[in-house]
């Protein structure tokens, strides 16, 4: 007895499973995330720079925010001195979101792409972005 | 073995000191297992098959040789033969090919083998036993093994490897206990069967297997009992039966037109204590005859067991063929099989495939109760314990279990019915109805976890005494446990090899415990119309409360 049918069925299932990423993406254009840094506040900045260099921020921003939270909540220390010597308020809402007021187009862009679910907004109040702007951006992208 | 008693030889139990034997050294040697060689000594191997037996069944390379000699007189192209043999079997058995590939050496099987538990030899861990063959497979049949060699666990097939195979494939009883624990179900029995099949290709086999094979081929049974002698021996035993019960039983042999053919191992007619079970069958059949049982015995198919299983698949088929052939010749409706271990592995897992379809037989129906044995509707062969359990369930037997009150019983699950069939409740049901004092051994030593008698698969000879005693430690120890705890003095089993080998084992590890069969217990308890007042059991021992009368 060979049970060829069962073996072939098994192999088809196996191939189906391991090639899932190959066939499930067919016909879906993989859109590269494009975080926007063109908020009104940023555009008015003389020097368009974040608190640390861009590459560092890309990789480490979550760690900075985490450190800030601990520092503010546990030690009461609210000032951050950057590597370039400038001083900033350790505040997500008042410092970060002041410039990056466009959560949907900035934060969510990459977080959704890589399925990262930061729990910032379980405590902080999500910024209320105007519905119209949100719709407009969706239309732009599609 | 230091300081053996001088008056004993290594093939005698008394040669081995119990305290010394049970101090097992589990520490593996320092050198790699590929660099160690087996040490052949009297007591741990079996003598080669005699040329006449090989000639009788047409197996290759009949000659006189000895395992302790340097030269084993192999054919010149032995290596070629073996490699071709492996290639052929890889094509024929998915089990073999798969088991060569997928073992991860997790070691779960290691301490499941009775030979390892009692002997400590690392190559008796099932995983290494298989690696003996697997290493050669890797070297000659896989790319990685060819290129990386020893790094990939591969080694060449050398003369020494062949000797190692012979040593270890005849230190495995094909009991399948390890397979129960293997996460992939790798079955060492399968590997040993194929290993022995390969060895047989170049004339490496043991007489304890091949003599029964040759006997069975020619005379119809392992013991080599010729037809007229079979009848005489039966009559002799039935005289004893008459002495005990006052009833003369007259069975029929080779009778055409009977409804049922009964086949049981010849070991039970040949030696005690199997003979009592043999008498038990006759007593039961005699009782049932007046109720409509029409049964006959055969001298041609006078063997239930099949030592072909321990030789090769082909030999198994050649010997098994007699059962259906005889059933057809006699024109019976179905076959009833006696108590035997590996016999039932063959009947349950091989017979229908090999020698079926048995379309000349009918679906078995008990003539007494009308029960249809639907689980046997294809092979048309029913186990005597199934048959008897059904009789008891339907109240067809008049039983007096107090006739077994002089006995405190435990039950040994034989490997093959346990793990090749799942035969647990039928014998227990029968026992509990014929015996008042019944105690189970510890749970890790019964049912699917049962331990081998260490003499199965053709190893049950005194030449193997050391290994049998070692391998028998787990079973013997469990028997000793219930002996001490519950006063158990009898060990019942449904296997003729057990009845031959466990006697020695019990004498050694649990002296005072006797070995019996389920149907000896049944016949002790069976109240047959017209029998005289029973004062003795089949062994001429007084029944409980009858001590004085029995002496008369």
């Amino acid at each position: 007895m060979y049970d060829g049918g069962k073996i072939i069925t098994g192999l088809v299932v196996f191939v189906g499973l391991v090639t899932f990423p190959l066939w499930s993406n067919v016909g879906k254009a993989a859109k590269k995330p494009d975080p926007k840094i063109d908020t009104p506040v940023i555009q008015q900045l003389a020097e368009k720079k974040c608190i640390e260099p861009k590459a560092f921020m890309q990789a480490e921003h979550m760690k900075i925010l985490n450190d800030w939270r601990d520092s503010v909540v546990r030690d009461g220390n609210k000032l951050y001195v950057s590597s370039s010597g400038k001083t900033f308020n350790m505040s997500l809402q008042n410092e970060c979101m002041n410039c990056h007021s466009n959560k949907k187009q900035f934060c969510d862009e990459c977080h959704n792409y890589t399925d990262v679910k930061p729990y910032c907004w379980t405590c902080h109040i999500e910024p209320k972005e105007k519905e119209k702007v949100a719709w407009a951006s969706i239309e732009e992208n599609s | 073995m230091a300081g053996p008693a001088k008056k004993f030889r290594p093939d005698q139990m008394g040669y081995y000191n119990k305290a010394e034997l049970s101090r097992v050294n589990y520490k593996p040697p320092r050198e790699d297992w590929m660099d160690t060689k087996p040490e052949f000594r009297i007591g741990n191997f079996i003598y080669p098959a005699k040329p006449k037996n090989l000639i009788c069944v047409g197996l290759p390379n009949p000659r006189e040789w000895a395992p302790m000699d340097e030269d084993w007189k192999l054919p010149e192209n032995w290596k070629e033969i073996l490699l071709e043999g492996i290639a052929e079997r890889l094509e024929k058995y998915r089990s073999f090919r798969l088991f060569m590939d997928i073992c991860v050496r997790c070691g779960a099987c290691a301490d499941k083998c009775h030979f390892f538990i009692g002997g400590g030899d690392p190559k008796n861990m099932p995983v290494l036993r298989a690696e003996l063959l697997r290493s050669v497979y890797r070297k000659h049949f896989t790319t990685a093994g060819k290129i990386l060699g020893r790094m990939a666990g591969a080694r060449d097939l050398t003369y020494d490897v062949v000797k190692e195979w012979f040593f270890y494939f005849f230190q495995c009883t094909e009991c399948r206990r390890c397979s129960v624990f293997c996460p992939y179900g790798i079955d060492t029995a399968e590997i040993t069967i194929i290993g022995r099949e390969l060895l047989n290709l170049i004339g490496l086999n043991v007489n304890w297997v091949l003599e029964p094979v040759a006997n069975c081929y020619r005379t119809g049974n392992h013991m080599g009992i010729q037809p007229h002698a079979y009848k005489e021996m039966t009559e002799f035993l039935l005289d004893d039966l008459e002495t005990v019960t006052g009833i003369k039983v007259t069975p029929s042999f080779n009778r055409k037109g009977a409804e049922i053919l009964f086949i049981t191992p010849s070991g039970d007619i040949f030696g005690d204590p199997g003979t009592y079970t043999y008498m038990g069958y006759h007593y039961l059949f005699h009782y049932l005859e007046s109720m409509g049982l029409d049964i006959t015995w055969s001298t041609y198919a006078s063997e239930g067991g099949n030592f072909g299983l321990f030789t090769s698949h082909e030999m198994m088929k050649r010997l098994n063929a007699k059962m259906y052939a005889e059933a057809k010749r006699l024109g019976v409706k179905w076959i009833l099989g006696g108590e035997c271990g590996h016999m039932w592995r063959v009947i349950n897992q091989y017979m229908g495939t090999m020698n079926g379809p048995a379309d000349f037989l009918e679906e078995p129906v008990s003539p007494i109760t009308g029960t249809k044995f639907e689980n046997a509707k294809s092979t048309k062969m029913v186990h005597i314990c199934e048959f008897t359990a059904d009789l008891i369930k339907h109240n067809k037997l008049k039983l007096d279990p107090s006739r077994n009150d002089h006995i405190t019983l435990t039950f040994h699950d034989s490997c093959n019915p346990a793990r090749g069939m799942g035969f647990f409740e039928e014998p227990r049901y029968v026992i509990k109805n014929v015996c008042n004092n019944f105690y189970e051994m510890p749970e890790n030593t019964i049912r699917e976890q049962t331990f081998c008698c260490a003499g199965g698969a053709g190893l049950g000879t005194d030449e193997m005494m050391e290994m049998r005693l070692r391998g028998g430690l787990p079973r013997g120890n469990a028997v000793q446990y219930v002996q001490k705890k519950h006063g158990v003095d009898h060990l019942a089993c449904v296997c003729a090899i057990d009845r031959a080998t466990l006697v020695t084992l019990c004498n050694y590890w649990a002296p005072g415990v006797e070995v019996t069969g389920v149907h000896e217990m049944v016949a002790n308890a069976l109240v047959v119309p017209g029998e005289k007042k029973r004062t003795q059991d089949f062994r001429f021992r007084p029944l409980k409360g009858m001590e004085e009368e029995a002496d008369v």
Partner: protein
Amino acid sequence: MRLLLPLIAVLALTLIAYAGVSGAGMNYLFGVFIPYAAFLIFLIGFIRRVVQWGRSPVPFRIPATCGQEKSLPWVKRNRFDNPFTTGEVIIRMLLEVFLFRSLFRNTKVDLREGPILRYGSAKWLWLGALAFHYSFLTILVRHLRFFTEPIPFFVKWAETLDGILQVGVPAFYQTDMVILAAVAYLFLRRVFVPQLRYISLANDYFPLFLILAIALSGILMRYFFKTNIVGVKELTMGLVTFSPKIPEGIGVIFYIHLFLVSTLFAYFPFSKLMHLGGVFLSPTRNLANNNRAVRHINPWNYPVKVHTYEEYEDEFREHMKEAGLPVEKE
């Protein structure tokens, strides 16, 4: 040697990836070419091996029965350890594949003076194996976030569940810890249990080291040497949509991780890791114990030489007649 060589091999693989990317700048080779090749080898090798197994028939139905068979209707039977129907076989296989039922039975023997043999429960191997395989599976599933867009619900579930403790940033995955612990356990028992050390081959240590290195490089990348994760996903999405590209700014740690994973994939079909496919084909587990009711067919069953009744009677006829046994020919 059996232990050292695989270790050296894994270290060498790490160095090769490091030197290849950071030294020679062969990002395309390590980021695109090798992953594609490895996946192809894995897929074709796996199928070939299973087909090779499938081409050998199962001549006999040889299930290892681990419970009461189906016999008389009033005998309570064990359906899952001794299946009689295909449905019961499927359940037995599911229990075997998903819960490692056979390994769960594991016991440990202890021989004392006397002699007294005692059997203890030994579930550590079962637990370790289960922990290892399920962490591996979870890790595989949550890695799909790099290979799908939009990301399917089950991948999100896997991630949420795995990070449910919400410890640290980036959120700590329990499986990262579990797989390290499980691999360490599986490794240490091989080294410290004398019997296991004796049977272990280089083929046993190599996958352990390789998986350990993969897990470590992944953990380092996530929690310590962070790299441009968006870039990583661009690369992986490029691979699965067959439009490979190498984005800027991906750290060498990623290439090391990817190269080790590629090695594992390519090594898989030629190794014991094929037990993944093999367990489904094991004839002692995947067959029903119903031989006496349903005949199993052996495709290569061939006629054999038997000793017929006629030959038997010819030899013993006179004796038989004398003993009063019936004969065919007078």
